[in-house]
């Protein structure tokens, strides 16, 4: 390489799409239409603790394990041991990959205080190291995390800049797909203006903490010659890697099943066109306290288990044993299903973890159990400390995720009075296919009513029906006998 070229030489606005190197990170490949620009450097910037190193690590690990592309991780901050430990928290076995010649970890130790500068120099040592590492394992991917450490430890900024320029061109000439991480700068993307050197793809990570809740987001700031979503996408760091949850609009291609699943309550099946919910649809059960929302969830779970379908029940208010006891009192015995492993409870106090952890755990459990039915009881437990907007977005994504997987989802939602539907209900209502409203304000101690507020794609009765929680389950009244004129008499009907 002789003289550094001007980056502007890279012909701007070529409409040809760059080839992609898939990251294997769930969601990221979707929003970048397939991955990072193949054979080119990508700049990954963001503040301290935003997940840059983990994302970069996962890019290499997935490259090595899923795409047969070995990788070199050159770390300027963390030692190889730190990296190994961090990666282990995501379930990645770096020593194993190193032993299989699929990964090289090189920790570049620089300490200004141990070094005297006496005349002109270049960074050829870095190039030699990188070159050797790439050749040793035939690397196709490279991570440099983070080059800016050089600025703190080397005195000649002029030398550094021309060498970095040379490095970026060198990486491109080697044809490796590279991630270069950089610290966020004041009022600009990176502290030392590394964005000047990378013209193909720039990704920014962000993390905010409000209350106990960490929200992480990712934005593709720039992606040459390609359409990309400019939104901020929330992402999670799970026990088995990162997970980006793309927005709903990107994937409205759920296959709408015509198969029906029983609600577990014969008369409710009858109300819903005679057959129950659609498989893979989302059902919202709202109601004031004590109206029996969990009972409807238990009926659905019971019916699913009878069909032999794995069911996952997330409980954020009651312990599993409490739910089992309460449901047994109304004649629904879920214990055999638990014993058979068909029904799995996952219970946690809403305040125990941040939102991110909850959703991460839910995703993980769903992926592990591969249930056909998922129950979240109740949905609004997630609202803490007025983090309304973040929560809404995250919940929308959860609902969307279930739909995408064809999993029937039931969400219960506590509303404070029957006249007012909760904020959360309105937020998710567009994603909801069947919305049941439970009401406890009819006369009599057991006076409860159910209204089907909506149920997409099926004929359904919109009239309130009374129901009781009996020793033999949810007893929903028959269709009213004289309902043609819109009056209902079923408030007093025997159940």
């Amino acid at each position, binding site marked *: 390489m002789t003289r550094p070229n001007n980056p502007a030489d890279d012909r701007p606005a070529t409409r040809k799409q760059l080839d992609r190197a898939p990251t294997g990170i769930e969601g990221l490949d979707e929003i970048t239409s397939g991955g990072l620009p193949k054979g080119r450097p990508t700049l990954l910037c963001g503040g301290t603790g935003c997940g840059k190193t983990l994302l970069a690590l996962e890019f290499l690990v997935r490259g090595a394990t899923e795409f047969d592309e070995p990788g070199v991780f050159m770390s300027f901050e963390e030692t190889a041991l730190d990296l190994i430990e961090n990666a282990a928290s995501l379930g990645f076995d770096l020593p194993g990959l190193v032993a299989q010649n699929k990964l090289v970890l090189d920790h570049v130790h620089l300490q200004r205080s141990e070094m005297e500068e006496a005349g002109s120099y270049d960074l050829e040592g870095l190039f*030699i190291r990188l070159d050797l590492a790439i050749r040793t394992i035939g690397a196709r991917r490279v991570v440099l995390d983070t080059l800016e450490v050089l600025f703190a430890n080397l005195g000649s900024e002029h030398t550094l800049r021309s060498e970095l320029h040379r490095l970026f061109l060198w990486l491109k000439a080697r044809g490796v797909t590279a991630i270069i991480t950089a610290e966020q700068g004041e009022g600009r993307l990176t502290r030392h203006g590394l964005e000047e050197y990378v013209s193909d793809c720039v990704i920014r990570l962000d993390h905010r903490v409000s209350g106990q809740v960490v929200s992480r987001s990712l934005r593709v700031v720039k992606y040459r010659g390609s359409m990309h979503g400019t939104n901020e996408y929330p992402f999670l760091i799970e026990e088995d890697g990162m997970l980006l949850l793309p927005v709903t609009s990107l994937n409205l291609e759920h296959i709408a099943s015509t198969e029906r699943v029983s609600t577990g309550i014969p008369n409710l099946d009858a109300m819903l066109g005679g057959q129950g919910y659609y498989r893979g649809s989302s059902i919202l059960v709202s109601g004031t306290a004590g109206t029996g929302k969990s009972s409807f969830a238990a009926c659905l779970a019971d019916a699913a288990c009878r069909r032999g379908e794995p069911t996952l029940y997330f409980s954020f208010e009651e312990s599993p044993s409490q739910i089992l006891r309460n449901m047994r009192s109304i004649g629904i015995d879920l214990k055999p299903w638990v014993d058979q492993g068909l029904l799995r409870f996952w219970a946690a106090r809403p305040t125990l973890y941040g939102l991110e952890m909850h959703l991460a755990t839910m995703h993980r459990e769903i992926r592990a159990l591969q249930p056909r039915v998922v129950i979240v009881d109740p949905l609004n437990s997630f609202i803490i400390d007025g983090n309304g907007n973040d929560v809404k977005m995250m919940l929308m994504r959860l609902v969307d995720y279930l739909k995408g997987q064809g999993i029937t989802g039931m969400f219960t939602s506590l509303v404070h009075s029957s006249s007012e539907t909760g904020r959360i209900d309105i937020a998710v209502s567009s994603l909801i296919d069947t919305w049941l409203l439970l009401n406890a304000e009819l006369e009599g101690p057991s006076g409860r009513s159910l209204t089907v507020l909506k149920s997409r794609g099926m004929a359904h009765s919109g009239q309130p029906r009374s129901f009781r929680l009996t020793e033999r389950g949810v007893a929903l009244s028959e269709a009213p006998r004289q309902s043609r004129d819109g009056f209902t008499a079923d408030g007093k009907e025997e159940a």
Partner: protein
Amino acid sequence: MTPWPTPPQEDRYVLRLYVAGHSPRAAQAIANVKRICEDHLQGLYTLEVVDLYQQPQLAAGEQIVAVPTLIRALPQPLRRVIGDLSNTEKVLIGLDLKKQTPDDTAAAE
């Protein structure tokens, strides 16, 4: 004069100069380090010049980033001087053969 030869003194200072190929800068650094050693450490040092292109594995092993890098392996602790070694003062400070004066500190800032 003692009847027995004094133990060799050459290993009091063990220096290694890492360069990349035969660039003018490498030649410069080699000439500079030889001159400085002869002027200040005559008979007390060994100097090895390493071409990293020939032994690339040493770049990671010795934590080389900038080239040329002069390493004082002995006496401990290990010290590094980077550059073509044209600034003799800085080389002497880097090898701990001369204390850094406040003036030097100010100049370095």
